[in-house]
């Protein structure tokens, strides 16, 4: 049901620009006003959220250690530097692996129960499907986002040209098919399929889990449609997009309506982003179980709200309380008077 709602909702979103541009001729609204507003909301919302996280204290240094720590004898007991980092540099590598290679997800296993002749067996096997789906999706998205810089920068930076060249290396079709386009559509479909088919994941999925997937799928498909089927006027579009970044708004007449659908959906994504789980993008960088070295036994870490008034139940009170019994048992007393005077703490 949650998936269906999300799908319907995305359909409705597609209809809005179709009507708005085709029937109501509100090109300026859909080509300029909405994307700019959405971008501002995205930017402010994103920054607000990250700053807001940053304002929360990090009272304790609590990395999840994923391997052998730095021992007193690093030769005898070899440290697993990147799963159990001890220094800033090692932690940096851990974060790079986490962010760019999805290290933790790569570890994923699947548990299963089996009844065998020898009795019950709980088995674990490596399970990298989710990692594969996720990495396909995220890298494709990332490459496509970078490629879109072509529309906002003049001259086009060399790495964008290079990326396009590599992405289109297979030289299939005209216009040349981009691998990342396939990757993104496939990645979204696989993640969606997994979410719907895996009963456990399905059970924990809300509309807010399906919606971004359907939305990104719609964005990808509208983009694919523009490029491969409608073959939109890219020069005209660049005129528009450069107008956006130079605050010199202009909407050429030759732009196909599919462009406005695409832009509207992207705008929705930008507005949705800061208020949703999609904030895992910046969030992963701030995660205290990953971005801190495992060194609190060696280095002092400051808790900004540490309360100096919380003190131990003092030994003096303890001795007052147990003095006579301690004396009788022959335990040394700091204050010999406590040997006689029994007092309740």
């Amino acid at each position, binding site marked *: 049901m949650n998936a269906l709602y999300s799908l319907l909702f995305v359909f409705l979103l597609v209809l809005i620009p179709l009507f708005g541009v085709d029937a109501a001729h509100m090109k300026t609204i859909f080509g300029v006003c909405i994307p700019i507003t959405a971008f501002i909301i995205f930017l402010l919302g994103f920054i607000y959220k990250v700053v807001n996280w940053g304002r929360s204290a990090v009272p304790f240094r609590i990395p999840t250690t994923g391997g052998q720590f730095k021992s007193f004898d690093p030769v005898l007991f070899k440290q697993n530097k990147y799963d*159990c980092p001890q220094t800033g540099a090692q932690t940096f590598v851990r974060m790079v692996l986490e962010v760019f290679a999805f290290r933790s997800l790569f570890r994923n296993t699947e548990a299963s129960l089996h009844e065998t002749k020898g009795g019950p067996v709980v088995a674990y096997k490596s399970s990298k499907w989710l990692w594969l789906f996720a990495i396909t999706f995220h890298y494709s998205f990332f490459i496509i986002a970078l490629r879109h810089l072509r529309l906002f920068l003049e001259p086009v930076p060399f790495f964008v040209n290079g990326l396009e060249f590599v992405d289109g290396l297979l030289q299939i079709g005209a216009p040349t098919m981009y691998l990342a386009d396939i990757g993104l559509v496939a990645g979204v479909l696989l993640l969606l399929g997994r979410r719907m088919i895996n009963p456990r994941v399905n059970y924990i999925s809300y509309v807010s889990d399906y919606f971004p997937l359907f939305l990104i799928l719609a964005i990808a498909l509208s983009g694919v449609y523009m490029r491969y089927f409608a073959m939109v006027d890219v020069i005209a579009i660049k005129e528009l997009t450069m107008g956006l970044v130079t605050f010199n708004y202009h909407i050429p007449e030759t732009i196909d309506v599919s462009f406005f659908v695409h832009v509207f959906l992207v705008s929705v994504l930008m507005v949705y982003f800061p208020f949703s789980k999609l904030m895992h993008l910046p969030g992963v960088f701030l995660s205290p179980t990953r971005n801190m070295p495992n060194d609190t036994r060696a280095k002092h870490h400051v808790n900004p709200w540490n309360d100096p008034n919380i003190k131990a*139940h003092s030994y003096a009170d303890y001795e007052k309380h147990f003095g006579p019994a301690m004396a009788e048992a022959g335990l040394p007393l700091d204050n010999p008077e406590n040997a006689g005077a029994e007092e309740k703490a």
Partner: protein
Amino acid sequence: MSDMPKADELFKSIDYTPPLTGWMETPVDFSPGNWCYPAKPEKIEYINSKLPGLWGTPREWSPGDADWKLPPNWKETVVNGFRERLEKFRTLKLFMDICVRCGACADKCHFFIGSGDPKNMPVLRAELMRSVYRGEFTLAGKILSQLTGSRVMEEDVLKEWFIYFYQCTQCRRCSLYCPYGIDTAEVTMMARELMHLVGLNTNWIMEPVSNCNITGNHLGIQPHAFKDIVDFMVDDIEEITGRRVKAPLNEHGHEILFITPSGDVFADPGIYTFMGYLMLFDYLDLDYTMSTYASEGGNFGSFTNNEVMKKLNAKMYHEANRLGCKWILGGECGHMWRVVHQYMDTMNGDTQGPQMATPKSPITGTVFDTAAATKMLHIVEFTADLIKHGKLNLDPSRNDHLRVTFHDSCNPARGMGLLDEPRYVLKAVCNNFFEMPEGTTREQTFCCAGGSGLNTEEILEIRLRGGLPRGNALKYVQDKHGVNTLACICAIDRATLIPLADYWAPGVQVTGTHELVANALVFEEGEERTMDLRQEPLPGFEDEDDNWTPPNAEEA
């Protein structure tokens, strides 16, 4: 354990198919066996007199009743407490926001693997709290509550928290696999802090907390009784080895203060580990003392809130300062070491006296820079260093009747990274060592299902279900390699793994690592022992069993 289903039956009853109703609509089972007994009012009164305002109203109540006798303003208290903690803990705020519900954590939790209850999937356990976060604190959650899985704080929600945040042992296994490092232990700690504010608590945690504060240890052993028990162990050691070892208590002017969990003073088989420490220290003629005042390494405060955790932990430096010790040696314990390694110096480092210094082994001269801030060393590090330098005369054949495997405790594994040292020590003191299957050891280790204050009888079935992954891995090496001994470095393990092994892998005994060290330790050249620390005959001396009366048999 009479009404427990048999292991095979229990295994067959596990079903991973989620219920037909959504999780918010699925009712919670409040029948006995699903919850720990609430704290006795006097325990709450006591701790409230020491740290006021964190405990709600002391009262008699039961989770089995419809009325939990919550204070009238409970909702406000919980919501405000939640808001306050979002500012105090970035972990909480972040973990409430960034979960994408990918489900990678789902089958990593031992409680889920053994029960199939979807609310034991770490993601859903945290959703119990996240749903409230969204409903109370986020715009999207307030407007689109249905679509975003949001809800506001209600009594049923709080009751559900009580059940499921006391079915998490804070073992952090899920956090290892989470692509964002979301740590359910952290979420559980926060939920428990909030529940304490309105007087939802468990006796198995609060009584130890109160005892630790008054008497210094969680069992409430008073100083003279503590001394009696230690003397008793010294007698036993003499019986076994012929050597009368020193056991200094509360003595000023020693270099080292030794602190270990008090469970080892009290119960079999922990006492053998304790005897192992005494023997090792005597062998080394170590300049150390123990303390009856700081006689608890384990920190039961860490199962309640950060304030008590700090207060109980503060005793360690307080006592080191009083006795003039330079550094602290810590015994085998799980959550004690999580607290020591990741919290202690931050909380109480500023109370270290000027006499304290970076731990340096008086035997080998090794300076342990990795403990430069806390001034506290793990006994396994200490012993591994001794073995490396050849300072221990060991006869591992004395452990030849044992076929040993090693259980990594959650906290040293995932909150510290102490993985290879205990293996090194074990391999030096016993000849038959076998690892449990990959995926169940080291950083991927499975919990004993009794950590974080859940080691109580009334939830035994929950514990045994949660113990399935560990128990099954144990059964595997028992069948394959004839393993009969499960070694560990945790006092809670030494209590919880016994029923777990009896249920899932009957015939395997549980031991501390230093029990095996002391078994193998040759006091002087030519020393011959006929029995191990449990006073069971060593290989080759079985015959003597017939005409040998166990010491203290008359007293028993």
